[in-house]
């Protein structure tokens, strides 16, 4: 049997990257490190912990060793042994970067670059020492903790990881002291003896093992039997069972263990190997393991005392088959014992355990339950844990669950886009099938008609649900692209000494996953630019009478069939003259007579152009604005710049919706159904003739409270026929775009629903006043109105001489 663990690499990488995102976001959410709440730290810890576990198992020691250091520190913070400091947050953030890089390098089968990791570890260490020196008075916990953990940090990363960390953990853990000292003292003793007896038999040493479990040992699922079985695998095992503690039958508690053992093990295995077998029960038993001379014999006399007693207890059946089976198959070593004359002892222990295991001795267990409440152990342990603390953790968890759900739906997208695409098409086909079926249904027998149409209704509903859920797969809120910016701004302001306040707007705007992935880098570049070239230094800003802290606003919204992402700053703005000069410098071809600032600003997107005096570390990383523009163009989008000297700049990226989903109001005009984006609708009303005013030429205004809203009859704008061409009592949908309102004259208001936006341009071309199309539940196509486009169109028509219809 061998499992190829490499098949899990991909899952691990994805999980690790997600975990790092979670860590980073949690870290960024920390405003005041010293007052960080438990759940945030827990979340960070859990992420680090998972990454470490997976990495270690898969053999990515570069990641696991490093994460181990993080985890150790986080664990201390989590347990309030250490106070979180902002420097630590900084280091943790850098660690996230390092781990992300390392993960990506591993993903690409590259050898990870670890220098940064070592530097970070050194920084961790340095910081810890600094803490030790400076903050001894403020820290409620002793310095010892600090020094211990700093040594943990150093040791674990630079080598000797497992043993060292274990021993220092034990040092910290007072609870363990007793057992440890017990083992240790006996260990020392034994080592001396070992030296004496080490030159014994060539086939190994003889160990005397005294094992006296606590009564409740069985309640954790640990059976002495299993332990013996393992010991027997190490060598030759003889056992002597002590039954003297066995209570009288009436007092016997079935799930407690009253037996204890002296074992003789002849083996080549080391003492540690033997202790390892007792690892799980070491604090639930008395255990001594000592080296003895091969002549040592286990004594059977003690077992004899209760032997008869036992025989009386165990019924014939219980003692026969099952017991024998256990004896032979599970305890090969007992056969040895028999030959050595300790038969009764071995049988005694087997017999005692068998009834515990088998349910055939129910009367016993009933009695036992009466005497000792089974969950006494459990309630004890509950007392140990501070109840109020537990409660608060629970309630936090509940909140977390909700958050997780939200995150999970977004973070677990691992569906190949092509699969999703074909699914969408399949769904489309389903819709067609459904409409054909319903037509067929019309010709059927009247008897069957109802059943058929019921079934069809079902199919229709299923289809629609499937359609909706499948199509949403591709859509993600733009917060996925935005989330990296708080971190970036933080780093950049540290690096540049500029103070920047980042505001995110419209994070819930949904965007096609592909568009999102590809817009991310251009946005990063724009934001870097804004800090590097836009925002002035705090001193300069104060001198200019501006707020010391610069402002960068990142916003997203649906607008006229596009998603518009804006990066705006309140910095120094772009000087057209400087651009022209630079363009001449760089031999970029342009029209010298050009005066339109928009055209001049566009020059910065020309290849080879850079407004930076020197290539800076921040925005001068290879890609220029020309790449930004190219990327956006590749997505079918465009970019615009608006800037005022001294006031700041706005970079506006228009992206196509492709598959975006929109909440729409369906309206009917004649035979056609149109979709009006719900966000642009102010209100819908029935026209009252007294509020209609005609002004200049064809313009008809409708008095809506204080506003005069121009009426656009959709049938006129689109040259189609309508039921209603009269204004009186007609339906008017008042919409708003770019701060202007217009009233759209429609025949009827239909349903409101979410629609999936499909491109018209893909197979046709852009149509003025239309932002795209969608497929309605019945499979038919409805066009989506582009409100701002429609306003433009109408305004242009007004300017031009009217054409004959």
């Amino acid at each position, binding site marked *: 049997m061998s499992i190829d663990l490499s098949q899990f690499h991909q899952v691990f990488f994805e999980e690790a990257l997600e975990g790092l995102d979670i860590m980073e976001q949690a870290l960024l959410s920390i405003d005041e490190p010293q007052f960080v709440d438990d759940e945030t730290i827990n979340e960070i810890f859990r992420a680090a912990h998972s990454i470490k576990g997976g990495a270690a198992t898969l053999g990515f020691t570069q990641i696991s060793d490093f994460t181990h250091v993080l985890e150790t520190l986080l664990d201390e913070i989590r347990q309030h042994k250490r106070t979180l400091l902002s420097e630590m947050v900084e280091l943790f953030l850098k660690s996230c970067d390092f781990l992300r890089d390392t993960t990506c390098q591993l993903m690409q089968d590259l050898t990870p670059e670890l220098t940064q990791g070592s530097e970070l570890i050194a920084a961790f260490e340095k910081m810890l020492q600094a803490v030790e020196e400076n903050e001894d008075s403020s820290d409620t916990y002793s310095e010892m903790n600090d020094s211990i953990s700093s040594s943990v940090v150093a040791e674990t990363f630079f080598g000797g990881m497992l043993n060292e960390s274990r021993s220092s953990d034990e040092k910290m853990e007072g609870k363990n002291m007793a057992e440890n000292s017990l083992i240790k003292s006996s260990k020392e003793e034994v080592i001396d003896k070992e030296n004496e007896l080490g030159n014994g038999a060539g086939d190994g040493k003889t160990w005397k093992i005294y094992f006296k479990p606590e009564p409740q040992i069985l309640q954790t699922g640990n059976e002495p039997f299993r332990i013996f079985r393992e010991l027997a695998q190490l060598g030759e095992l003889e056992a002597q069972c002590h039954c003297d503690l066995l209570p009288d039958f009436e007092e016997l508690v079935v799930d407690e263990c009253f037996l204890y053992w002296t074992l003789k093990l002849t083996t080549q295995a080391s003492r540690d190997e033997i202790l390892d077998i007792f690892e799980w029960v070491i604090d639930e038993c008395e255990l001594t393991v000592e080296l003895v001379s091969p002549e040592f014999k286990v004594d059977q006399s003690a077992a004899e005392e209760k032997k008869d007693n036992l025989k009386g207890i165990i019924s014939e059946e219980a003692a026969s088959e099952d017991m024998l089976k256990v004896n032979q198959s599970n305890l090969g070593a007992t056969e040895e014992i028999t030959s050595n004359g300790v038969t009764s002892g071995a049988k005694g222990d087997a017999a005692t355990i068998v009834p515990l295991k088998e349910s055939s001795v129910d009367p016993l267990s009933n009695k036992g339950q009466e005497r000792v409440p089974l969950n006494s152990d459990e309630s004890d342990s509950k007392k140990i844990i501070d109840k109020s603390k537990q409660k608060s953790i629970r309630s936090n968890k509940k909140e977390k669950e909700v958050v997780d759900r939200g995150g999970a739906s977004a973070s677990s997208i691992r569906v190949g886009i092509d699969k999703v695409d074909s699914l969408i098409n399949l769904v489309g086909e389903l819709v067609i099938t459904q409409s054909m079926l319903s037509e067929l249904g019309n010709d059927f027998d009247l008897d069957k008609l109802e059943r058929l149409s019921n079934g069809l209704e079902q199919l229709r509903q299923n289809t629609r649900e499937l359609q909706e859920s499948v199509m949403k797969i591709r859509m993600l809120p733009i917060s996925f692209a935005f989330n990296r910016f708080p971190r970036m701004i933080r780093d950049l302001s540290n690096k540049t000494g500029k103070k920047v306040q980042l505001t995110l707007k419209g994070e819930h705007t949904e965007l096609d996953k592909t568009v999102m992935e590809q817009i991310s880098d251009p946005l990063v570049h724009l934001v870097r630019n804004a800090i590097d070239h836009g925002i002035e230094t705090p001193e300069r800003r104060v001198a200019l009478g501006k707020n010391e802290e610069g402002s960068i606003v990142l916003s997203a919204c649906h607008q006229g069939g596009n998603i518009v992402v804006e990066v705006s700053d309140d910095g120094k703005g772009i000087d057209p003259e400087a651009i022209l000069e630079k363009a001449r410098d760089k031999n970029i071809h342009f029209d010298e007579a050009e005066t339109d600032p928009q055209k001049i600003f566009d020059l910065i997107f020309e290849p080879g152009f850079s407004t930076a005096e020197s290539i800076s570390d921040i925005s001068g990383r290879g890609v220029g604005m020309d790449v930004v523009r190219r990327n956006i163009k590749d997505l079918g989008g465009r970019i615009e710049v608006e800037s005022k000297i001294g006031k700041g700049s706005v970079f506006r990226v228009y992206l196509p919706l492709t598959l975006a989903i929109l909440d729409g109001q369906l309206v009917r005009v004649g035979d056609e159904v149109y979709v009006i984006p719900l966000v642009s609708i102010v209100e819908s009303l029935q026209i009252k003739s007294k509020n209609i005013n005609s002004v200049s030429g064809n313009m008809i205004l409708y008095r809506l409270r204080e506003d005069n809203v121009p009426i656009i009859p959709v049938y006129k704008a689109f040259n189609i026929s309508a039921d209603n061409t009269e204004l009186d009592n007609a339906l008017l949908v008042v919409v708003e775009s770019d701060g202007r309102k217009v009233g759209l004259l429609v025949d009827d208001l239909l349903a409101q629903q979410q629609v999936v936006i499909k491109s018209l341009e893909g197979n046709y071309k852009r149509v003025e006043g239309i932002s795209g199309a969608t497929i309605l539940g019945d499979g038919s*196509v409805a066009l989506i109105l582009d409100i701002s486009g429609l306003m433009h169109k109408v305004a242009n028509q007004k300017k031009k001489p009217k054409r004959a219809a």
Partner: protein
Amino acid sequence: MIMAIEVPEVTTVASNDMLLDGIDFISDGDQYLTFVLGKEHYGVDILSVREIRGWEAPTIIPNSPSYVKGVINLRGVIVPIIDLRKRFEVSEPTYIRTTVVVVLIVKTGNHEKTMGFVVDAVSDVINADDQDVQVSPDFGGSVSANYVHGLVNVGDNVVTLLDVKQLLTVEDGEVVHHE
């Protein structure tokens, strides 16, 4: 309202056998799907034919040329429908049971473009070597020369082979009122 019809029905009505199963794909030369517009015969490269559909009323595109009938939903994709009879001004369009839509697909760069073309009926699949294809004399007919790939003789008829790529290029045209 005009009923949608199914493709098999179309093939029986369109006299000659045009089931794609019957096509001998091993034969030399290019194959063309031929169809009728009014009294004229046209052909398109069969490899660019995606499917043949019955006529269904599309959704009108506002302010579009009169030959653009609108858009339909073709398995989740929005596909414009062009009436070739109007585009080439060869016959007065009627929408009856034999009226079919030939859906053509063409790759330009890394983008695929799909459009549906309304024709009176599809008729046949023909083989034509390059040497069979004659250059079209430009007599200033209603079909602009750049749509025409060439002419080919089939029996007594002349079939005008169309350049699918050009066909799928949308131009701004006359704007009419949709009735």
